């Protein structure tokens, strides 16, 4: 099994089944769990995850409930858990309180794509001060100068969107992308690479160039299909992940 960070949305399709999903992802061989807190306006996500966010909010997600779910998950699984959120929930709560709550819930760090280095409301400095990972999200169109700025906060991980665009559109691993990943790998930073990964071929193709492959929309879609066909969420996840081993 290659090293994979799996992505899921808290409260999707509801609290209990998102807990079930987390357990199934860990059991299926994920090395990291990325758990997204749903937001009303997830502008960096595609239609699959946006629809999941809308459903999750309808199912009653709250921030306090979200941290409680994370606590339950981190006590249940023995792999690192990262919280992905948009800026608005974190800023509303106060970025320091948000990161502190994540830590108290047992998460290893947070990923907040619209709090980029320099416009981050103290996210990077505060996380570091309490030993939490603040994971910057970068894209292949990043300039050399900007990459230096981002790496100047000395993150342990960077999260890389491999395709210019939004989550869920197919990623093709072309030469410029491979060059970009090679430049990154030369830095003292572990690369989490994803966006649009859906097949075992893509995972295998990408694995040599990154620390972990991020699989997102593909798994959220598996949950959506399970729900619409009345199947078990954990069963669907298990069979989706089984394919990656082949």
């Amino acid at each position: 099994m290659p090293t994979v960070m799996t992505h899921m949305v808290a409260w999707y399709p509801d609290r209990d089944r998102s807990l079930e999903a987390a357990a199934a992802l860990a059991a299926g061989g994920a090395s990291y769990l990325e758990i997204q807190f749903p937001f009303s306006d997830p502008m960096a996500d595609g239609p699959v995850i946006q629809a999941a966010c809308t459903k999750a909010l309808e199912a009653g997600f709250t921030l306090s409930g979200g941290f409680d779910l994370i606590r339950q998950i981190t006590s249940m699984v023995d792999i690192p858990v990262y919280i992905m959120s948009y800026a608005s929930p974190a800023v509303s709560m106060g970025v320091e309180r948000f990161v502190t709550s994540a830590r108290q819930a047992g998460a290893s760090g947070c990923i907040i794509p619209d709090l980029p280095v320099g416009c981050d409301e103290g996210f990077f400095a505060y996380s570091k001060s309490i030993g939490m990972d603040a994971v910057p999200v970068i894209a292949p169109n990043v300039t050399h100068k900007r990459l230096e700025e981002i790496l100047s906060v000395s993150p342990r991980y960077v999260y890389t969107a491999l395709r210019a665009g939004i989550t869920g559109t197919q990623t093709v691993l072309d030469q410029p992308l491979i060059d970009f990943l090679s430049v990154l790998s030369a830095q003292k930073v572990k690369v989490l690479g994803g966006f649009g990964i859906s097949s075992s071929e893509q995972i295998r193709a990408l694995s040599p160039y990154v620390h972990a492959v991020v699989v997102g929309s593909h798994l959220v879609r598996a949950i959506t299909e399970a729900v619409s066909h009345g199947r078990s969420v954990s069963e669907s996840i298990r069979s989706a992940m089984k394919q990656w081993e082949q």
Partner: protein
Amino acid sequence: MKHSDNGFFGTFGGKYVAEVLRAPLDELEQAFSEAMADEEFLHRIEDEAKTYTGRPTPLLHARRASEQLGGAQIYIKLEGLANTGAHKINNALGQGLLAQRMGKKRIIAETGAGQHGVATAAVCARLGLECVIYMGEVDMNRQYPNVFWMRQYGAQVIPVTSGSSTLKDAVNEALRDWASSYGDTHYLLGSALGPAPYPDMVREFQSVIGNEVKRQSEGLQVEAMIACVGGGSNAIGFFSPFIEAVEPALYGAEAGGRGDAPGDHAVRMNGQGSIGVVQGYKSRFLLDLDGQVQTTHSVSAGLDYPGIGPQLAHLGEQGRIQFCSIRDEEAIEAVKFFARNEGLCFALESAHAGALAMKLAPDIPPDRAIIVNMSGRGDKDIFITARAIDEQQWTEFLHKEVQR
């Protein structure tokens, strides 16, 4: 402050975007500052403004309205006479020419009321650029005349069905498009909000309104200036040359909707909004306690946006601009009042400013003036105003029209 300090107005503004949008925003910022230093580009804008937009727009002394209200002399800046019927054309033209200067072939835009979409589509038709407009499905239904005209101008109008299917969702969709298309595409954002450089850029292209007013109002004792505020592009352009002075008083009219309950209005200032980061910038937004964006309501599709431009939020916090809220029915009354007394057809958005003028004028002496920005004309609103004012006759007409 008149310009942002590196994208910030006080603590508001910024470039809170996913990294993929950083490069196109930096490119745009650079191109904008180069273009604004290029005399030829500025002349081109001026020439188009004169011959295509129809600038300068008049500043009308509303004598009968002033008499009726029995106070200050009301002057109305007739932005609704600009080509395509609203101030939106000023920004669409500026950014359209900028996009062309940058070598972009395709324009995308969001629209709420549809005025920005119409202006963008018209400019694209004139400049020969491909045009895609994202519009919430709810807005498409209530502003169909604008959808019709966008299509006539050759734009592709894409309905947005996510979230609340209104302006903010159209912004999300446009940003998503841009994240993968910026190589050949310019995102022509319609209001003075979003990540830097948009708030500065949109204000600069809209400041032609205020600059004309400044010249046109020479010799008047101007007590107050009033504009409606959705995202705030007409307001910031209208106020722009007056921001750094102490006078006149500047008023922003927000959509008070149908009540004070969450979801019934779009009042972001005056304590109802909270400081947040949404859609790439920091400002005041209507959020719940967990930072989720709340639904809003206004009779006017252009004022129901849950956020406000960062510069306006900053000027509000500093006390330079006072914000007041106007209910739906007060806006409708203002449409009727100015139609009857001045032969003017206010857009429902601008009628919020008109309604605030009606409230303020009686307490100001007749030797003083107040200037209202009629940011747009109300022809597009006929399906809403006709129903609100005379439902029976309007419904009968629609039935007959369908049967014809």
